[in-house]
């Protein structure tokens, strides 16, 4: 089982109890009076059978508050996800924080900002490196790249999953476009691993057919589901944090009701990925304060009030085009706010240039950062020994020193985290050792990982089965005219 990080103090709360109640009440009002569109006759029938009012013409479902609240209570507050290697199983929820690798369309040169489509070898190498990084607990769907040289777009999600399973034993998330969930479910099962399924809305207040079919398939396979709405503040949601919290909440609680109607007790991880729009340019305003305040309110609502585990995606995609000051600042303030406000999962490593690119060297640097942020929520020990009052008395005032004490030798590595890529030299040492920065040091660590890391191979028969499923998928898409 992966340990992740264990929260040992109460999260910061941005809402008062009365504000939590207000947001919840208004969410129920939207769900019962405005409703949510489900683009699937099967889903509409199911929801009608469970007590919702359904308009089959507009495909809008109106949810009775009692059903919404009952469905919330049906969700487990923590659940297990099994890997092909038990050491990489996850227990998602409660007071655990895991980190998920970020992703990008292409491979970025983090010093020049240039991006290009990676080769399959580069894709596989990036997964292999992520497998070696302690702070990466799981992968997103189509990770790390969602364009790979020689792979047709429609085959990308299934091929990408196969490569993650071959080059890593960590848990991964499934995806939903163009029936990919059929192949992803079968590939994961062939590898002896569970997926975290996926159901992503098309805001405002709507679920497309792909999302619904994906949820049916993943839930029927016994997998937990990652639900996300992904609205844009000022575009597909109100521009205010409060308003977009309510509309996003209504979208996600609609998914909760739907999933619990398919199979009560299915594990759900609720993802917050609500991005403000820069209203001057119309661009998405990644890594901004609005996104972060949204996540803090979301974590409080879902973790504290609904008792459903949360994921935060806001720190995955810095706007900066390089691994520079802006990029680290953008990621860090948001990830810190997520961790301190109670997220169970944070998407973080390797993403740069908004959603456009990824780089494994950056993922290595981010390993240090995620370790520091994760350890922040574990706090520190307050005990007789760590308080060291007898030692303080023994050393006394100046010129006493703690340098040569066994307490110092015993405790310093326990209480500190020593980053592996960060520069910790003095200025003269830095000058005399070639002025190496964090990127140079991360590259050295990458060479070390590539030379020494081992991943347990997938059994040969499972490997053959995966190839067979991929061939079947190709045939399927060919028949549909998509290849």
């Amino acid at each position, binding site marked *: 089982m992966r340990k992740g990080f264990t929260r040992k103090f109460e999260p910061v709360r941005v809402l008062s109890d009365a504000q939590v109640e207000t947001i919840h009440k208004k969410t129920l009002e939207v769900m019962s009076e405005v409703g949510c569109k489900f683009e699937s006759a099967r889903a509409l029938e199911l929801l009608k059978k469970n007590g919702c009012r359904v308009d089959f013409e507009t495909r809008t479902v109106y949810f009775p508050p009692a059903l919404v609240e009952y469905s919330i209570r049906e969700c487990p507050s923590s659940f297990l996800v099994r890997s092909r290697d038990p050491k990489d199983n996850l227990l998602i929820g409660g007071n655990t924080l895991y980190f998920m690798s970020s992703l990008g369309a292409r491979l970025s040169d983090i010093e020049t900002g240039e991006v290009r489509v990676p080769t399959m070898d580069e894709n596989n190498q990036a997964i292999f490196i992520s497998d070696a990084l302690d702070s990466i607990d799981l992968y997103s769907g189509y990770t790390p790249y969602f364009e790979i040289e020689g792979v047709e777009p429609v085959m990308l999600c299934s091929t990408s999953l196969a490569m993650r399973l071959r080059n890593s034993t960590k848990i991964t998330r499934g995806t939903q476009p163009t029936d990919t969930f059929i192949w992803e479910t079968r590939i994961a099962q062939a590898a002896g691993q569970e997926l975290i399924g996926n159901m992503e809305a098309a805001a405002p207040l709507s679920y497309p057919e792909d999302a619904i079919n994906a949820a049916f398939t993943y839930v029927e396979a016994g997998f937990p589901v990652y639900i996300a709405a992904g609205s844009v503040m000022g575009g597909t949601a109100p521009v205010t944090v409060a308003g977009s919290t309510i509309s996003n909440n209504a979208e996600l609680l609609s998914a909760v009701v739907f999933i619990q109607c398919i199979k009560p007790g299915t594990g759900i991880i609720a993802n917050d990925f609500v991005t403000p729009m820069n209203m001057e340019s119309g661009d998405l305003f990644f890594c901004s304060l609005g996104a972060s305040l949204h996540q803090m309110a979301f974590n409080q609502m879902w973790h504290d009030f609904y008792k459903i585990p949360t994921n935060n995606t806001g720190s995955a995609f810095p706007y900066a085009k390089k691994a520079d000051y802006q990029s680290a600042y953008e990621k860090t303030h948001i990830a810190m706010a997520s961790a301190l406000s109670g997220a169970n999962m944070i998407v973080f490593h390797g993403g740069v240039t908004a959603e456009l690119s990824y780089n494994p060297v950056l993922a290595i640097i981010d390993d240090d950062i995620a370790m520091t942020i994760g350890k922040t929520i574990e706090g520190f020990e307050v005990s007789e020994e760590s308080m060291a009052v007898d030692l303080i008395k023994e050393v006394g*005032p100046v010129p006493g020193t703690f340098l040569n004490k066994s307490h110092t030798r015993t405790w310093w590595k326990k209480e500190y985290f020593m980053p592996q890529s960060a520069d910790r030299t003095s200025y003269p040492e830095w000058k005399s050792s070639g002025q190496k920065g964090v990127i140079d040091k991360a590259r050295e660590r990458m060479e070390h990982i590539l030379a020494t890391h081992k991943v347990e191979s997938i059994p040969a028969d499972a490997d053959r089965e995966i190839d067979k499923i991929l061939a079947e998928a190709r045939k399927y898409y060919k028949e549909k005219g998509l290849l």
Partner: protein
Amino acid sequence: MRKGFSRKIPPLKVLNSSQMEYIHSSTLEVLEKTGVKFESERALKLLKESGCSVDFETRVVKFPGWLVEECARKAPSSFAVKARIPEDDLRISLSTLYFMPAAGAKLHDEATGELSVATLDQNNQGVRLCDGLESVDFQASYCPFFELKDVEPVMLLAESQASIARFSTRVSRGAQATDSFIWEAMIANAAGKQLIGTMEGAAPLCFPEDAINAAFEYMDNGFPIWATGGSVMGGSSPVTVAGATISNNAEILAAITFIQCYKPGNPVLANDFVIPMDMESGNLFFGALGAGFHQMAFNQIYRDLYRIPTCNAMAAFPNSKLIDYQNAFEKTHLAMSSALSGASMIAFTGSVSQELAWSPVQAVIDNDSVNIIGRYIEGFEINEDTAALDLIAEVGPSPGSFLGKKHTRENWKKEYYVPKTFDRLSYQDWERSGKSSVIEKAKKGVHELLGSHNPAPLNDGQEKEIRRILKEARQYYSKKGLL
């Protein structure tokens, strides 16, 4: 009055109430049994008269618990500090967060990381630049540079204070070395402003004569005092966070007791600047998690138990030698945990390469960082208008849009902060516009600000008086053989 940022969400608590009591009672035990050295006859006499047990030979003062608690109660939870102009007055309190620049020895080259000694003119420009940054509420002492090409070391602090009085209307901090406090207090009075005085310990458990004399002088001038211990975890304090919290607490509470015995009700700003040591190299371990924990515990104890405002200085000094990814992470995670755990002031702006350097470019970038971090503690508004329920109903499910709505136009800038130097371009626009980075944009910002920002000058009488004070200081140090 400077507004700073107003805390609207309750601060994070890393300690439970019994741990906080445990740390407090252990601190009293150290103060009663081990005591603190005061290198001043005058202070020893004062403390003896006030009820302490004093050993005049070892100069160690043992503090009765009742006196410490009584003195902590006498320090106000909020206080005003007068600036040169009323708009820059400060109201330091538990519910306001102010930011200040850091200081660095030398001038940093943003392209290479090389350091050079600044001239007095460059120092004046640095002060003026900080005055032009809206997020700088307060100037540090010997700020921004603490080595100047054309100023002798012993005159540095007085010249630096004069530079701040001439090129900034903000409140500033006084220093304590080599009787500089005499001239600094006189310069502040001449400029018609207050200083926040200083009293810095020489850990473990010791206050040198300079610190004590400075505190007497600043209090005689009616100035509040910045009390700080400044120990090194594993060197001059225990290596553990809990142990270092107790020894640092004993040092600062000893200072508070001394201050309140001399002048009951004198305001105190308690500063936390406790640095872990990298026990592998003996270097100071700036930017480390241990420092973050120490500050969080410190903020909680001083806010909840003693009701005394705090400053946190550790986010000021990144280990990185460049304005790079590591630098931003180191500063940001520490400033975020400081802000969310209840600091009343954070030192942040402009420093790089530990305490060795200051950079105007970094200062302009940090202005954006501060404007985001500060807004976190202000949260967001929840009311009928921001909840936007009617609008959610009007827009309805997909393909509804919030883009053309008045609510969006009216609210987007209220809820977001739009950074000035961070790159907000799409990848295509970024490529087309010359791929400019945050550093390049900040360089332009420095140029523009220095070309346009001119704070209200001192009047002729004030300028004349400051010149006279500096002349007197030179004569004083000449007579002492220090010039």
